[in-house]
């Protein structure tokens, strides 16, 4: 994965607009309609912030990767895997009790997977030495 400081806002924008928003919409159409416009504004703001950071870091066209960034990728993948497993098991039980549809369940776990991966990646990247 080639994720840098400037990619985080972009990733959050994509997760927010293409995963979190449809997940909310899947559970409640009414709330989904109401959050459409605010989410669009946040999406645009995050994209702009991402581009500004990428230009500032000179990583707009090419992301610099080294041993440390590869290690951060592995750490983030490992910890989000454990988190995902725990979440999938717990939400599997809840899905059976609350009668979630298959689409609701899948979109929920995929959203949590991507979100946890990005958050762990950000945490390890900003932590410094790992």
């Amino acid at each position, binding site marked *: 994965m080639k994720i840098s400081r400037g990619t985080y806002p972009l990733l959050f924008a994509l997760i927010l607009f293409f995963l979190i928003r449809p997940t909310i919409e899947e559970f409640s159409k009414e709330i989904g309609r109401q959050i459409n416009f605010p989410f669009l504004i946040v999406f645009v703001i995050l994209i702009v912030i991402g581009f500004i950071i990428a230009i500032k870091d000179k990583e707009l066209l090419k992301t610099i990767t080294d041993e440390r960034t590869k290690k951060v990728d592995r750490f983030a993948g490992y910890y989000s*895997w454990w988190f*995902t*497993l725990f979440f*999938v098991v717990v*939400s599997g039980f809840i899905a*059976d009790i609350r009668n979630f549809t298959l689409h609701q*369940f899948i979109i929920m*776990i*995929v959203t949590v997977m991507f979100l946890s991966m990005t958050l762990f990646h950000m945490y390890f990247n900003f932590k410094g030495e790992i």
Partner: protein
Amino acid sequence: MKGKKEIIVATVVVAGVLLTLFFYLMGTGEIELNQIVLVGIALILVGLAMYIIWDKIRNVQKGLPGKDERTISMSHKAGYYGFIAAIWSAVFTPLFFDVSSGYEPDGGDVSAIVVLVSAFVFIVSYLYFYWKGK
């Protein structure tokens, strides 16, 4: 001793899984093919996990650490592949069932498949790195 606690915890988990499988099979009246496949995958996973634990116990008995830099790195790499497998299995499970049998799995089925597939990928890639010496 370093790594001894992990070995004890892993042994308890393996025993717990075997006990759960035993009670699950005892509680089922007639065993169907999908149950055999599910239990079969779980047993393969338990077997591979037992091999890893046995190897760690052997190392500890020799006075070597049960956990070192290399095993931590291997776990992280294997966990990363397990995570990728979890994403793809979550996305493709409904599609696979739809194409192969037309049956729509529920939340419990999907979570069981995601856990089993990602755990299988984790253990297989861990053993691959272990035997390859990476």
